[in-house]
């Protein structure tokens, strides 16, 4: 066989991978008719019994959104979605507020079980509290009492808006204003639900907080809103994991995440994203437009972003940090895998404002099939950023000859004492490496998985233990020739 045809065999094998979690559960949903206007927004706000200021904020965001242009700059191919054909609210018809798991619709439980998400004892033993968001309404919240003892608030965004309106009013939009970008504005107008976390001064959150989002109702865009506030000298680790059922229509997803870290506070935000990427021909799949941003507001504060992105037909996502406090630090660790016709344009922004601020960016892109994987990053050193430092490393691994890897680093330095370093590599899995593995009895599939996991190891090791195992599996699934 020639080298080319061997390459092709490996690629064909890898492309055969089907979406493992492709099923949809049959839960009755209350869904708004498609379309967006001020009445729709008023209705969402009314259903959620929101305070007046929040409705006003939504409406301002909506009005601003209408004046904005759809973004075009990312290295992706996309037709502007028809926003009037999307429904902006869906909730499971059996209302939330359960006292125990027994009261939850068994269909929902079985969906979570298929995903391997143990909502029951396993999580308790592992010390993970799960706030499960199914479509737009929280169906289950765990460990709240335990957390409340420490003064930690962890609940759905809607609940927070009702129970802690002063915190919401103070911090909502303080990191990502509704004017920030097209999809952030849309989210601000119609966000359905999400999570709210508040860690009081000096408290170390006793467990990893985790939320599983899942897009479920047909043709309903999901618009989560997450807000995490860490007061002085507090610590929290938040895990976000996502899977979605197989769909033919493209589903729009536009989330906003805001983090605020006060003096000496640390927020660790980890994501494993595995939304339906579309089939082998590039049909279907989730459109993922996310705005994630953290503010290191206090001195010596720290924000870490770790993400493993294997899903979505299209990803547009740049978890960013504004390093405002002196001596604040931020890290961004990312693994993005694209296969078939997936497109990912992802990276980070590190905006250094404070003195002696420090940021680290480690990005690993893996491209297969006909996919396109882009890293886009901005490092900005403001005039005030005395002795600020950044180190960036962007590595790309190509599998096959029809995929693409692109790196777009933007560096903008306004202070002479600042240091910015950027390193980038691109590599390809060599046939001889595969043959070496084969000769030792390791199949091509396992060999690729070993090499890819090795390539991404530096990032995976940053994930909390439990998530790291899941992430390894996820990457293996993305590579597998057959459904595991």
């Amino acid at each position, binding site marked *: *066989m020639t*080298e080319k045809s*061997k390459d092709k065999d490996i690629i064909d094998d890898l492309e055969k991978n089907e979406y493992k979690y492709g099923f949809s559960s049959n839960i009755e949903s209350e869904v708004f008719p498609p379309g967006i206007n001020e009445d729709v927004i008023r209705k969402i706000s009314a259903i959620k019994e929101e305070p007046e200021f929040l409705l006003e904020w939504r409406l301002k965001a909506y009005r601003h959104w209408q004046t904005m242009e759809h973004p075009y700059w990312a290295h992706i191919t996309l037709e502007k979605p028809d926003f009037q054909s999307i429904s902006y609210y869906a909730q499971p018809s059996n209302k939330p507020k359960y006292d125990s798991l027994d009261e939850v619709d068994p269909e929902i439980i079985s969906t979570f079980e298929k995903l391997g998400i143990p909502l029951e004892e396993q999580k308790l033993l592992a010390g993970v509290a799960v706030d499960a968001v199914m479509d737009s309404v929280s169906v289950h919240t765990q460990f709240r009492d335990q957390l409340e003892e420490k003064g930690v608030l962890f609940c759905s965004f809607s609940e927070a808006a009702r129970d802690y309106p002063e915190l919401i009013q103070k911090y909502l939009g303080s990191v990502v204003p509704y004017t920030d970008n097209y999809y952030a504005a849309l989210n601000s107008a119609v966000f359905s639900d999400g999570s709210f976390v508040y860690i009081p001064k000096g408290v170390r959150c006793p467990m990893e907080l985790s939320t599983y989002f899942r897009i479920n109702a047909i043709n309903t865009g999901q618009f989560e809103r997450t807000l995490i506030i860490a007061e002085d000298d507090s610590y929290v680790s938040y895990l976000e994991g996502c899977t979605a059922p197989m769909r033919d229509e493209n589903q729009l997803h536009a989330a906003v995440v805001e983090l605020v870290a006060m003096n000496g506070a640390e927020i660790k935000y980890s994501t494993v994203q595995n939304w339906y990427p579309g089939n082998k021909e590039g049909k279907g799949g989730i459109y993922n437009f996310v705005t994630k941003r953290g503010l290191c507001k206090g001195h010596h504060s720290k924000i870490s972003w770790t993400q493993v992105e294997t899903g979505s037909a299209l990803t547009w996502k740049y978890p960013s940090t504004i390093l405002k406090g002196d001596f604040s630090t931020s890290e961004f660790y990312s693994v993005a895998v694209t296969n078939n016709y997936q497109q990912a344009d992802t990276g980070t922004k590190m905006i250094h404002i404070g003195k002696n601020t420090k940021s680290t960016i480690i990005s690993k892109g893996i491209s297969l099939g006909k996919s396109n994987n882009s890293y886009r990053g901005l490092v900005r050193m403001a005039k005030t950023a005395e002795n600020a430092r950044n180190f960036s490393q962007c590595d790309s691994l190509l599998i096959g000859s029809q995929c693409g890897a692109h790196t777009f680093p933007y560096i903008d330095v306004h202070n002479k004492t600042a240091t910015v370093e950027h390193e980038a590599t691109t590599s390809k899995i*060599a*046939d*001889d*490496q595969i*043959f*070496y*593995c*084969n*000769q*030792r*009895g*390791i*199949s*091509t599939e*396992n060999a690729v998985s*070993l*090499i890819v*996991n*090795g*390539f991404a*190891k530096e990032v995976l090791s940053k994930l909390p233990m439990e998530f790291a195992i899941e992430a390894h599996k996820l990457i293996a699934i993305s590579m597998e020739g057959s459904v595991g």
Partner: protein
Amino acid sequence: MLEILNLHASVEGNEILKGINLSVKAGEIHAIMGPNGSGKSTLSNVLAGHNAFEVTKGSVLFEGKNLFDLSPEERAWEGIFLAFQYPVEIPGVSMTNFIKTAVEAKYKYQEKDAPSPAEFLKMMKEKQAMVGLAKSLAGRSVNEGFSGGEKKKNDIFQMAMLEPKLAILDETDSGLDIDALRIVAEGVNTLKKPDNAYIVITHYQRLLEYIVPDVVHILHDGKIVKTGDKSLAFELEKKGYDWVK
């Protein structure tokens, strides 16, 4: 164990092997010697199943099975091991993880339970000591930044872990200094059992002072032109390859 009949093979349309006949029985050590370009490495790659080489004629039976019906990994599981002339580096993949994956795959194929982590670790330590592989290398990526000698030792270490029936050593002596050569050879001799066999491919007679062959073959222009006992190697060393041309 191995029956090669009239084997022809080519690379990119050029015929390299032009009718090899070779029979290896359990318990035997065969040496294949030959000048550069005689087809030594092609033979080892064809036996291991490298797809850059096309078999155009002939047959190979391994333990009664048609070798060409088996994928490279199936050949490995059946007990064929190739110590490479140039072992490749696999950055990011730890030695431990690599060899564990390989050993587990073999046990699975044989429908046996894989060794427990404790047993596995013990086994690794023993075999490392046997081939003189520094412990620190076990924590590193496969062959990454290894010296030429360390790479060769690493291959022999993997052989010790996988316990093949037929091991093909492709110029394992090249790039080894005399001490390393002795250690590697001792490892091979320790692993030698009545039920396994070796094909030792080498350019020089030097290695054969340490690994003593039962049969020596001289390969020239894709054919075995002479076969004899170990004295053939000494004769060849004295007279040079021109003697067989």
